[in-house]
């Protein structure tokens, strides 16, 4: 298996959109991320962010049906962790609104806080989505220690 240019390492997993798989996904990504010089606190942050992205896919993507969630994580040559969480579900009509705190399409369950945590805990969060075309969330984070060291 050859890695694309600029990618030092890569893992990928896919699983049915079941709540039981959220813990596995966040733990697996955190263990993979520990190849970089993240602090324990940063690894906890990564766990929360991945948990939110995967939970969003499990809750929103397929309604009451079960679909596939794909999680891919890479370590770039520059020492950054990039995580993609993808689904082939119904997609998000208005990404801007979906990302606002306190908004949720299922009130009272999670307070629409998922994106708040992702944004607070990661260096970058991108959402690509369109109705009927699924959703892809990209999460980026580099160890703060590495950044200080330049």
């Amino acid at each position: 298996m050859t890695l694309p240019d600029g990618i030092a390492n890569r893992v990928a997993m896919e699983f049915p959109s079941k709540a039981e798989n959220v813990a596995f996904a966040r733990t697996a990504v955190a263990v993979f991320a520990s190849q970089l010089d993240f602090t324990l606190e940063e690894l906890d942050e990564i766990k929360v962010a991945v948990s939110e992205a995967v939970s969003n896919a499990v809750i929103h993507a397929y309604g009451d049906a079960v679909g596939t969630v794909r999680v891919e994580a890479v370590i770039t040559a520059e020492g950054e962790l990039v995580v993609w969480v993808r689904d082939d579900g119904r997609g998000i009509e208005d990404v801007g609104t979906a990302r606002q705190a306190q908004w949720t399409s299922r009130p009272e369950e999670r307070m629409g806080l998922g994106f708040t945590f992702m944004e607070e805990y990661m260096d970058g969060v991108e959402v690509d989505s369109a109705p009927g075309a699924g959703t892809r969330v990209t999460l980026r984070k580099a160890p703060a220690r590495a950044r200080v060291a330049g």
Partner: protein
Amino acid sequence: MEARRVGESLIVRLKGELDLNTAEAFKAFVREELAASRRVRHLILDLRAVPFIDSSGVGAILGRYREIKEERAGRLIAWGPRQPVRRVLALSGLVRVMDVVDTQQEALALLKEGNRNP
């Protein structure tokens, strides 16, 4: 999960991660325990053995807060959350509606005083 009653308080001891997968069991457990005692007004969540929480867990706690506040005019107290959990609770704004304490005595004393967070 375990629960015991001390005066007007229900103390619920959680064990393990509180996320999308475990939030439902937590909700059901607390609801059942509350239903079993009309005397209970306050909810003290012993979070010492909870290593992880995300927004699903926060939502589940918020839901219980609303129940005890609206139905029993009670209060919610978080006992002993670990640092990562404490950060998530702070970031979520949940700390605005509940007190966070380090010991059970502190929790019970706070309820006796009847002040601090509304």
